[in-house]
């Protein structure tokens, strides 16, 4: 098992850092899966996470100038590592003006991801700051636990509103309630609602648009030309939604969600080189 990678481009580095920051906001611990072409950040829906799952996928070629990986075996040319993304996030913070960042899997006393940040110093010399991030190697037999979650049979698929507005609203609602109801229909309308003994607040978004596949067979309610106005709703933990929105530092190219009535809300956020899927189960 070997892994060695290097980022030299400042824009790639900053983009990569942003992705790691986003993941750090969503998961205390997660899986880093390395393949020849891609990197994945995975959080699977164990009870400890409150049932939420994360699947974040990026093509290594878009970020790394050098990328060499040898998996556990020839037929299974992949590496699965468990780690704390906040540690990687902090290491990358020191790399804001770096000349290069090298990441290497090492096993001196215990398995670690060694992040070596080469910082500009006096002309013709460099400083190197090294961070050793402890990782756990996930054995081959457990890899099935971390497969890509299947997209649920959803009732409604809709584009998200401007994230900045959605973020402000959800942040305020979080002060008022622990749970939020998210509902949407095939006419581009979405409502966010909270209700407690003391107060109820509903925010109405219109003209959001529904993705084209909303009318394919996948989407149950449209197949028989059902009511386009009918809302599909799910009540979810507001903190999970707030963490997802808070982690978005840059506006995604596409942001949408699929709602399976009373079961799960599936968020998809696409940036140019990275896709992030976040699944929040509905509260019974």
């Amino acid at each position: 098992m070997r892994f060695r990678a290097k980022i030299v481009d400042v824009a790639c580095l900053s983009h990569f850092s942003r992705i790691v920051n986003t993941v750090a906001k969503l998961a205390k611990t997660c899986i880093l899966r390395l393949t020849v072409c891609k990197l994945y950040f995975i959080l699977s829906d164990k009870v400890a996470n409150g049932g939420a799952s994360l699947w974040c996928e990026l093509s290594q070629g878009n970020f790394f100038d050098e990328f060499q990986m040898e998996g556990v075996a020839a037929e299974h040319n992949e590496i699965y590592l468990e780690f704390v993304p906040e540690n990687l996030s902090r290491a990358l913070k020191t790399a804001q003006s770096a000349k290069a960042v090298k990441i290497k899997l090492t096993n001196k006393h215990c398995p670690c991801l060694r992040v070596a940040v080469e910082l500009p110093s006096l002309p013709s010399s460099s400083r190197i700051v090294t961070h050793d991030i402890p990782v756990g190697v996930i054995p081959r037999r457990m890899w099935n636990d971390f497969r890509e979650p299947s997209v649920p049979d959803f009732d409604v698929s809709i584009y998200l509103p401007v994230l900045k507005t959605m973020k402000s609203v959800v942040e305020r609602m979080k002060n008022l309630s622990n749970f939020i109801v998210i509902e949407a229909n095939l006419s581009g309308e979405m409502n966010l609602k909270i209700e407690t003994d003391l107060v109820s607040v509903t925010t109405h978004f219109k003209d959001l648009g529904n993705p084209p596949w909303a009318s394919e067979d996948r989407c149950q309610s449209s197949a028989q030309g059902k009511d386009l106005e009918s809302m599909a709703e799910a009540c979810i933990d507001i903190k999970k939604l707030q963490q997802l929105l808070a982690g978005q530092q840059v506006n995604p190219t596409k942001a949408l969600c699929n709602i399976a009535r009373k079961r799960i809300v599936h968020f998809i956020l696409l940036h140019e080189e990275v896709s992030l899927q976040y699944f929040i189960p509905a509260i019974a």
Partner: protein
Amino acid sequence: MPFSAQLPASGERYALSASLDNARHLSSLLRAVHFQDYATCLATASGLRVTVEDAKCIQANAFIQAEIFQEFSVQEESVMFRISLSVLLDCLTIFGSSSLPGTSTALRMCYRGYGYPLMLFLEEGGVVTVCKINTQEPEELLDFDFCSTKVVNKIILQSEGLREAFAELDMTSEVLQITMSPDKPYFRLSTFGNAGSAHLDYPRDSDLMEAFHCNQTQTNRYKISLLKPSTKALALSCKVSIRTDAQGFLSLQYMIRNEDGQICFVEYYCCPDEDITEAEL
């Protein structure tokens, strides 16, 4: 238009109904008195008064007069209810609290009367939020009985002169001592903290002093923890009037100019600290 879909039919009469193009005109003033969770709202034809009290010895009032609103109508002589100010502020600032130029949240407020919730309709950029906040029975409010005829000492200062002083008050001191006198030191703020005592003097001929009417030397102490929240009102204001009466009750009145240049007032009343009230320096 979403608003009209939610608004009551024209036949319905609301005890209080008001519209405001920029909800910040209300929220920023309410923040200046937000040192307790609950507040009492009183609406009359003149406008809205929101009162917050603590420890039975401090009271803050925010006044938003009817002219600030684009529409303000009160059906009975007055309408009064108690409401969670924290929740009200979260609702008024639902679209965020930063004031980006050119964007503002429009507000419509409706209250049917005793026992009904306060309804808020907020709109920004085509997005509409509807809030329903439960109200409570209003509690009796303190009456400081502070009228201009009983005022012993009064000064009016430009707020910028006091802002730094209040922001840097030594919070290890239990009290803030205020001395007002026709003679030196004229106006002095003192604290007695762990590191020692600090005195800040403002001479009567200072540029910051807009009016100086002190008839009698008075030194009064007030619990600093009760007065500290007034810093928020001071930060928003352009002028402040400081008055005391014969018993040492303190009135701080802040003149606040909103984004559109309209004037609103916030006042704080505070009882002197029971243990010490001296009539000498």
